[in-house]
């Protein structure tokens, strides 16, 4: 009965979405045979209704074909499939290929932008790009140098192009874009360069700037209504993005927007999170530093914020809040609710009411998380919604030039951008995670435009007394806030997951395995070692009536920096054993798309 109710809620809401969203795009998104945007759907569920490949036959899966991107560095994101065409992208120089699936993947067109190579070192952590998006006959590419370009999906010709930022000031891009109605929603990177984050809506038709909302600054910049915009149910008041900062620090305040975007057509709200405040030295920026580390719900047409929730006020650990917001319709405490579930870098899995911004659940999704004891859930408490920071792990309280040790998670978070998947069949979230802790020593730094603005020294290592690996792949119940099962992994799981109606969940590993597991039990059903480590996201589509599963391999990104040579062993000499393994012992560079199917 519960399942039926949920299903009904999904169907009725799906119907409502058709009426409001971009109708052509919504139709393609709703068709499981195609994959039109990086997140699979507006809800960011990464769930496919396809079930030809299922838990009974996935063990027989084989490689159908492969494709080299010709680029060596980290490959994030995934290809798209629109009809007979597949669109494959690469990291810098951000090549895009259109492949004709009806002609065995023949290259129909290739687009390679000319970009100043000076953008490469301004990108914090490798030259990754999380992929293109489709809408209205156009392929949208947001290049490393922040040029947003609309390409004719049939010919690859540039329809329009617009500059979203300035790499000379450290503004770059790694994210995909989200087409919504007549707009394309675009973020920005550069939190380690003192960039002030913003989200911008451009017209799909001609690239005209329609609105831009900053993460901090006066209300006119942040598009926050002091009376109507709420934080945990209360109006935020005037200039909330200014009065939690000292002096002009907000102008170089970070809060960049390099993660994923989701959209609820019925509420007409887009959801995303903002990144770390700059610098990493908390003593240089007293105050809560609003609205860094915040979940935003903005009106898609005007950009005005409806509600906000700051997860980590006054960050002291680089726990960016940019991870995806997964939208679900579930029954909770006997009520059908529109939920938003978010696995934050700070190690807490949050469940909120996405209409009101009410906080429902905040629980640790890795038991080793120790920087805070809990998030206060009592609305009457002055501390409502705030994490309770443990003094020992507070880099602010310990002060500048003091090394705080044993903080879990590390700066790369219990999970970074690598997106989780959700199956409405199991009502479970499948989450790729990091299992890494750190020492963190902040110190004073000066700001120079276009130069790194970090101000902390870090060492990272696996948690003491754990399985010795640096990652887990977990199944999470977002209503109870509990881990249902957890698969230990040698390295951080840095690949986006995919759940399907075939009761299978797919994910990639840094050694390069594509794995398929049973969505109910986590039992491994299949693995194949691709040419390089996987930091891309798994997707699925059909062609000629046959289901395919595809993933980009090509190691790099944050994982390629921290893990390439293996992490520091803080207890070396104390007889510690385990997985302080170097990724370079397992895999090497190179971008390849691998496409799987069942044998004929």
């Amino acid at each position: 009965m519960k399942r039926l109710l949920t299903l009904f809620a999904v169907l009725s809401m799906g119907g409502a979405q058709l009426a409001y969203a971009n109708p052509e795009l919504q139709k393609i998104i709703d068709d499981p045979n195609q994959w039109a945007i990086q997140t699979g759907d507006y809800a960011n569920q990464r769930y496919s209704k396809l079930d030809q490949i299922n838990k009974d036959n996935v063990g027989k899966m084989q490689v159908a074909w492969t494709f080299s991107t010709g680029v060596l560095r980290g490959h994030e994101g995934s290809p798209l499939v629109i009809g007979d065409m597949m669109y494959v992208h690469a990291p810098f120089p951000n090549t895009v290929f259109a492949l004709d699936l009806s002609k065995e993947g023949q290259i129909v067109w290739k687009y390679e932008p000319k970009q100043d190579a000076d953008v490469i070192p301004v990108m914090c952590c490798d030259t990754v790009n999380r992929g293109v998006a489709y809408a209205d006959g156009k392929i949208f590419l947001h290049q490393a140098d922040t040029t947003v370009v609309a390409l004719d999906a049939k010919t690859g010709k540039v329809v329009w192009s617009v500059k979203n930022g300035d790499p000379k000031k450290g503004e770059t891009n790694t994210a995909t874009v989200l087409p919504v109605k007549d707009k394309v929603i675009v973020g920005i990177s550069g939190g380690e360069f003192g960039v002030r984050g913003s989200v911008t809506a451009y017209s799909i038709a001609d690239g005209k700037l329609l609105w831009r909302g900053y993460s901090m600054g006066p209300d006119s910049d942040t598009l926050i209504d002091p009376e109507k915009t709420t934080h945990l149910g209360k109006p935020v008041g005037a200039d909330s993005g200014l009065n939690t900062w000292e002096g002009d620090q907000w102008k170089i305040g970070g809060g960049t927007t390099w993660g994923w975007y989701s959209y609820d057509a019925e509420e007409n709200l887009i959801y995303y999170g903002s990144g770390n405040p700059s610098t990493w030295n908390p003593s240089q920026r007293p105050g809560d530093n609003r609205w860094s580390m915040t979940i935003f719900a903005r009106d898609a047409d005007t950009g005005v914020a409806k509600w906000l929730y700051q997860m980590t006020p006054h960050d002291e650990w680089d726990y960016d809040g940019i991870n995806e917001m997964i939208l679900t319709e579930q029954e909770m405490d006997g009520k059908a609710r529109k939920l938003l579930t978010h696995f934050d870098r700070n190690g807490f899995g949050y469940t909120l009411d996405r209409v009101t911004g009410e906080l429902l659940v905040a629980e640790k999704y890795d038991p080793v998380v120790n920087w805070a004891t809990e998030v206060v859930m009592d609305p009457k408490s002055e501390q409502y919604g705030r994490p309770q920071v443990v003094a020992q792990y507070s880099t602010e309280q310990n002060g500048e030039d003091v090394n705080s040790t044993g903080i879990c998670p590390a700066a790369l978070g219990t999970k970074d951008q690598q997106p989780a998947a959700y199956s409405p069949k199991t009502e479970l979230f499948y989450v790729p995670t990091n299992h890494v802790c750190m020492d963190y020593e902040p110190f004073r730094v000066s700001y120079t435009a276009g130069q790194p603005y970090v101000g902390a020294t870090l060492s990272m290592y696996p948690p003491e007394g754990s399985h010795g690996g640096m990652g887990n792949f977990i199944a999470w119940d977002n209503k109870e806030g509990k881990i249902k099962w957890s698969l230990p992994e040698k390295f951080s799981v840095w690949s986006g997951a995919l759940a399907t109606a075939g009761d299978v969940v797919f994910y990639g590993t840094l050694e390069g395995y594509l794995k398929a597991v049973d969505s109910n039990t986590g039992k491994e059903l299949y693995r194949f070692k691709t040419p390089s480590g996987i930091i891309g996201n798994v997707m699925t589509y059909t062609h000629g009536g046959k289901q395919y599963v595809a993933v980009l391999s090509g190691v790099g990104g944050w994982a390629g920096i921290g893990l390439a040579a293996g992490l520091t062993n803080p207890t070396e000499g104390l007889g510690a054993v385990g997985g302080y393994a170097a990724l370079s012992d397992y895999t090497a560079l190179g971008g390849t798309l691998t496409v799987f199917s069942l044998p004929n």
Partner: protein
Amino acid sequence: MTRPASALPITLAALALLASAATAQDAEKPDNITAASNENGRYLTADGVPTYNVAPDGTIDWLTYSGFRRYHSECHVCHGPEGEGSSYAPALKTSAITMDYYDFVDVVTNGRKKVNAAENSVMPAFGQNANVMCYLDDIYVYLKARGTDAVPRGRPAKKEAKHEAIRQAEADCLGH
């Protein structure tokens, strides 16, 4: 966030002078590692090139310790922890040994590009970045100590006190 403009150019001018002196010294190849002198807490080779020093009880010089901190703030997001290299940027613990000091300084100050069909490798110019330039010798000697394994991975345990001359030079460079 603000810094008087005067301090950094002085440092840069001094570096330029050092760089021009480099070619004359390339003829012979003396020991580039062993500390021959200690000038106010800064250790130098017989050729006057900055180097690290590890005392018999394992105490390391201040600059090497400082270099550990600065490296992990400014360099490690591309070059990996402890100079070990990343999936795309070279292991600087090796570069600090194989490269001449003055070439090392030149690449950090002015940057370097290797962009071709096989590589998209770009070292930015840090010449205007006080957080790097004021600690260039610190970073260099730390990487050298890593390259010879004189200092193991992880946080150095015992260090010399910070000499007043080093404190003064730092303040002058940063313009504090």
